[in-house]
């Protein structure tokens, strides 16, 4: 009998990694290195604050906690994530994971054991810094509530990072590549996504915990540095940043665990099932809207990029309104595109390749395959239509929420037809992307569509910066990209650009609609051919 999940110390995977990774030599060497760094960091920060900052002992102890937290973050996020990604990729590459997959341990146990076991040395090293934390807590009179909140965030974020490492190691299966990708993802989570999160996907900005921890520390600090508002406005609610962040991290962690579980059961399984992809889309849209609508309603925090400000100076509508209109419009335009990008990402995870479809067709007439395998091989097009509908619905909801704002009333009165445009602008690129995957596979789709979709607007931008008038051919090139269609639809609707992009947009949308029809006919012909050959081979 396998032990229950909550008795995690009996988990064979955890015990196996504990035995292998907690041998006395590496523990001793790493322990000495980490303790030396911690001692230096804590003592230098404490005495430095006393000497140069003229801080009290309590304030100095609080500041001395920062290098300890930083070191714990390095150990857990950077070293731990790397260990997990490389460890699991190595086991896949060497074929060890096959033997592990064959054990009758439930997949949930395997995921939990790997998640806790692979970074066990790093977790232990991070835990070994707790005496320094205790010193700060006692000397700094830090409330226990703050300490618990910070450690809960740190721990949850560490497990989330390790789950990301586990997924990258499971998907990539080459240890150097998996390790590199895991490190890039850490940088993405902590540096890049927070920079862009304000343009529509605010939830992702909460995955890096530095700001919240700094805010928690500043709350208990006697000095006024890093004073921040720690509330998150979510629709009509004001939520605590730490609580909101924790919930967001737990939800993402649950999603990653589901992905890993699917892969433990079937090595060839899609990362997401179709219902799960729809659920993800819904969750992302709701969380994005939740954070965006209060910003747009109050109209204070979003700032448009400078190049857009310059571009918009001559915009016919905006000249008649105040500069306040700029930021909500930027967010609205960004949100239209973000719906498409989310749907493209999710449809890439759920669209079956041509070989999967061929296998599913050939298996007809024989015993039914595994239900998960059959579900993965089903067409993703209905799910894509649903995702486009969701993105469109979210955009309409956003309009509904912000139209009480007088600026928007002017904008909306200038753009009566925008709802239909935005739906078409999301639907056709999304469907053509998924159809191309179903017809020729992911690699082909990525190579062809992304190179065209990215190359076209980039070339147009470079050429117009180099002096070619945007009004001439660059606007056609720019509008030909499927990725730009939702933004252009909104720019057109709100009459934001002095140059008319309406005709190029119509031509490009028509082209993508035509592409959908051609690809649809090719898919139907292919499916008919496959069915005929499957009937022939089953008869023979």
């Amino acid at each position: 009998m396998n032990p229950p999940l909550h008795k995690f110390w009996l988990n064979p995977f955890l015990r196996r990694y504990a035995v292998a990774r907690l041998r006395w030599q590496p523990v001793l060497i790493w322990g000495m290195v980490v303790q030396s760094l911690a001692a230096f960091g804590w003592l230098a920060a404490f005495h430095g604050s006393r000497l140069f900052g003229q801080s009290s002992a309590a304030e100095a102890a609080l500041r001395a906690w920062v290098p300890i937290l930083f070191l714990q973050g390095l150990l857990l996020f950077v070293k731990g994530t790397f260990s997990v990604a490389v460890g699991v990729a190595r086991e896949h590459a060497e074929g060890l994971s096959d033997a592990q997959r064959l054990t009758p341990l439930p997949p949930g146990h395997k995921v939990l054991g790997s998640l806790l076991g692979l970074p066990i040395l790093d977790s232990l090293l991070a835990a070994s810094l707790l005496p320094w934390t205790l010193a700060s807590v006692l000397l700094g009179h830090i409330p226990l509530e703050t300490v618990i909140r910070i450690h809960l965030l740190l721990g949850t974020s560490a497990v989330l990072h390790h789950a990301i490492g586990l997924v990258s190691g499971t998907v990539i299966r080459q240890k150097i590549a998996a390790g590199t990708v895991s490190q890039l993802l850490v940088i993405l989570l902590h540096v890049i996504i927070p920079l862009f999160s304000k343009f529509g996907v605010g939830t992702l900005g909460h995955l890096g915990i530095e700001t919240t921890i700094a805010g928690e520390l500043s709350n208990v600090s006697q000095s006024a540095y890093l004073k921040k508002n720690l509330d998150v406005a979510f629709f009509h609610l004001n939520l605590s940043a730490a609580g909101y962040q924790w919930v967001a991290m737990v939800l993402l962690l649950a999603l990653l665990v589901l992905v890993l579980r699917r892969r433990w059961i079937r090595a060839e399984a899609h990362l997401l099932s179709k219902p799960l992809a729809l659920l993800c889309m819904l969750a992302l849209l709701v969380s994005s809207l939740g954070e965006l609508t209060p910003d747009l309603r109050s109209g204070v925090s979003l700032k448009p990029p400078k190049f857009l400000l310059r571009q918009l100076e001559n915009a016919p509508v905006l000249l008649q309104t105040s500069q306040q209109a700029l930021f909500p419009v930027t967010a609205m335009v960004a949100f239209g595109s973000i719906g498409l990008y989310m749907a493209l990402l999710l449809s890439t995870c759920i669209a079956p390749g041509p070989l999967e479809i061929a296998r599913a067709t050939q298996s007809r007439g024989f015993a039914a395959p595994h239900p998960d395998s059959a579900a993965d091989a089903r067409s993703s097009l209905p799910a894509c239509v649903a995702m486009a509908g969701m993105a469109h619905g979210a955009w309409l909801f956003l309009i509904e929420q912000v139209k009480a704002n007088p600026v928007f009333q002017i904008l909306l009165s200038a753009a009566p037809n925008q709802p239909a445009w935005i739906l078409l602008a999301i639907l056709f690129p999304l469907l053509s992307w998924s159809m191309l995957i179903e017809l020729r596979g992911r690699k082909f789709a990525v190579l062809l569509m992304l190179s065209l979709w990215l190359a076209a607007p980039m070339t147009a931008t470079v050429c117009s910066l180099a002096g070619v008038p945007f009004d001439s051919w660059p606007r056609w090139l720019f509008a030909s990209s499927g990725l730009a269609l939702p933004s252009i639809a909104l720019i057109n609707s709100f009459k934001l650009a002095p140059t008319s992009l309406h005709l190029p947009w119509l031509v490009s949308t028509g082209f993508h609609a035509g592409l959908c029809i051609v690809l649809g006919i090719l898919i139907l012909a292919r499916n008919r051919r496959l069915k005929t050959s499957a009937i022939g081979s089953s008869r023979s």
Partner: protein
Amino acid sequence: MSVPAPHGVWVRNLRVDYGPFTAVPHLDLTIPPGEIYGLIGPNGAGKTSTFRALATLLDPVHGEIFLGGRDARHDPEAARAVLAYMPDLAPLPEDLRAAEYLRFFAESHGLYGPARDQRVAACLEAVDLTGRQHVFCRALSLGMRQRLNLARCLLHRPKVLILDEPASGMDVAARASLKEALRAQAASGTTIILSSHILPEVQDICSSIGLLQNGRLVDSGETREVLLRQSHAKKRLRIRTAGSPENLLSWLYSPDALPAHAPVLRGDTVECQFAGDTEAQARFFTRLAGANLAVVSLEEIHSSIEEVVLRLASAPHEPAAP
């Protein structure tokens, strides 16, 4: 639809593809419990693909697979509880000792405490590795690694044991101990299906064999019967005469000797191939006796398992059905 075997291995309509390449176009297989079954064929015949599909590690295009009475396609988790698979040159974790490695798998099968330690010790003893339990896996020789993997497979007393080239890297003594261990497992009711390039051993250990060519089972059954059938497919005769063998050789070239052909002189005997059924063979003997060649002995030479596999390997390559 036939009723699946309650135990053993039962496979119907199995098809395995790698992208556009079909490795196993169609395979039906029934192996009763307690049997040691050798799947024989040249490289690329589809042995490893079949094994991986049986072991639930490869999703076949279609087919039904029952292992020890469990539906491996619809309930792979249940099938995994009763099967063990040892791939060709199975990897070992470099960072664990031999006993630690076995303890991990014993715990994964729900064995803890003294029961786990006893089972680990018994399996190490079964593969003659008791003295190496504290050695790191990375320090074991190739043969020892194979034996340790076999010990891992035996831990949970599987009902179905799938072994891909289990004797790779083993010396003579280790192979003898492997045979002993496998026979003991089969005697306890375990169905064993194996492949090996050491064909005399397969002939020696397997109670039945299947010949695989281009992913199709060409012949299957008890080892002796299969070899006999394959021998009849391309029969050879060895004839010795009291007089000069050259006389016999020249007679074998004459039209009277048909359907014997391709005679070869080997010392004082002549070997030839014979393409005919039993009646043709009887008529041939009568004509040979009437040829006044003073025949001393005449024997039928059975094909060895190597010859059968060589014949399969050199047979024209039929493309698999799409």
